[in-house]
């Protein structure tokens, strides 16, 4: 038998909770193992202390709770016991304040992360310019600076049907964008 198994049985044997064959096995192991013998002695001392406590404790023997229980039964338990309090749920101010702060913080974070609604544009964005007409053509309103968006992709405004830009009003501004196709051809 291993010492760990023997010690498990020692814990039971000090309170007479072992079966007959277990008791024999423990005794045989204790006969051969000095460490477990010492452990057993310590365990017996601990149990002796526990039993002293068991025998020392005294209660007021002549106290009966039946009178109080009977009274409370007849009164529908409306009279609580003097020291014992029925469990009641009550607000804890600190926890409530903590929850409120957390909610406010979460709300602010959500509001800040919302997308800004820029449907009303008072000034043209960077890629647009105002066409005032000229050169014999009529004013064209706000037009994109180019109809290419680099790397041959269509510009975002080209997918938007709300903005219809006549071809003759297009005026390239700045450095012309080299299409991706021509770049790849250079390789």
């Amino acid at each position, binding site marked *: 038998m291993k010492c760990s198994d023997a*010690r*498990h*049985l020692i*814990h*039971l044997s*000090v*309170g*007479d*909770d*072992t*079966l007959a064959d277990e008791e024999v096995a423990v005794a045989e192991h204790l006969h051969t193992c000095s460490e477990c013998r010492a452990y057993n002695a*310590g*365990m017996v001392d*601990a*149990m002796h*202390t*526990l*039993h*002293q*406590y*068991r*025998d*020392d*404790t005294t*209660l*007021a*023997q002549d*106290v*009966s*709770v*039946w009178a*109080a*229980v*009977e009274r*409370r*039964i*007849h009164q529908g*338990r409306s009279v609580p*016991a*003097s*020291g*014992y309090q029925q*469990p009641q749920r009550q607000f*804890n101010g*600190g*926890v409530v304040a903590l929850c409120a702060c957390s909610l406010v913080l979460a709300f602010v974070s959500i509001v800040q992360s919302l997308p800004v609604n820029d449907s009303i544009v008072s000034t043209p964005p960077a890629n647009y310019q105002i066409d005032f007409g000229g050169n014999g053509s009529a004013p064209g309103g706000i037009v994109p600076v180019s109809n290419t968006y680099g790397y041959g992709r269509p510009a975002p405004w080209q997918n938007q049907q709300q903005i219809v830009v006549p071809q003759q009003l297009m005026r390239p501004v700045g450095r012309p964008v080299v299409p991706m196709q021509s770049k790849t051809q250079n390789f």
Partner: protein
Amino acid sequence: MPIRNPPMTDSNDDLRSVDEDPESMDSDHSGVTDARLVDEARRGNTDAFGQLVLRYERRVMRVIRRFMPDDQLVQDLTQEAFLRAFDRLEQFDPSRRFGPWLFRIAVNLTYDHLRRVKRRGKWALFSETGQERTPDPETEDPRINLDLSQEVQMVMADVPETYRTVLILRDLEGFSTSEVAAVTERSEATIRWRLAEARRMFRDAWERRERSLEKRDSDDD
């Protein structure tokens, strides 16, 4: 060693010899069984329930007393346990024993109370308990004056709840392992395992306490 508080049953599977005690039986000197008293109490006979209270109150008080030192609180919890048992008599299974059911209510009620007190301290934003964390060297250590009962209670407080219950019921109140299993609604094999672990934990905690006392004494010298 004879058991001071014999179990509530005379079942043959008990591993320990037991003394005869009227409190341990399902019926006292009147010869009326618990089952019959429970049956009458369920029909509204409070006197029958009163007999059950008188039959079990001392043992219930003793068990609760093992968990807390306040006698007044012990009495209040005992009252509460019997009232709860009376309220739940309809839920009691008559094919089972009344004693373990009653003790289960008492133990659960006691743990509920202890947890509530502990939780109240844990969640309090401002507590006065922290004022005395640093011991004053001028004042005498109150632990010196503790008697054996208080010392054992302090050590047992270090044993986890699940194991402490088994230790109290078995080693302090003399319940058999089958009764502890019935009270805690666990198998006897589980109770035997927990009992072994509980005794080991108590021994370790007790030895830790003794070592700390020896160290303190050597420091004083």
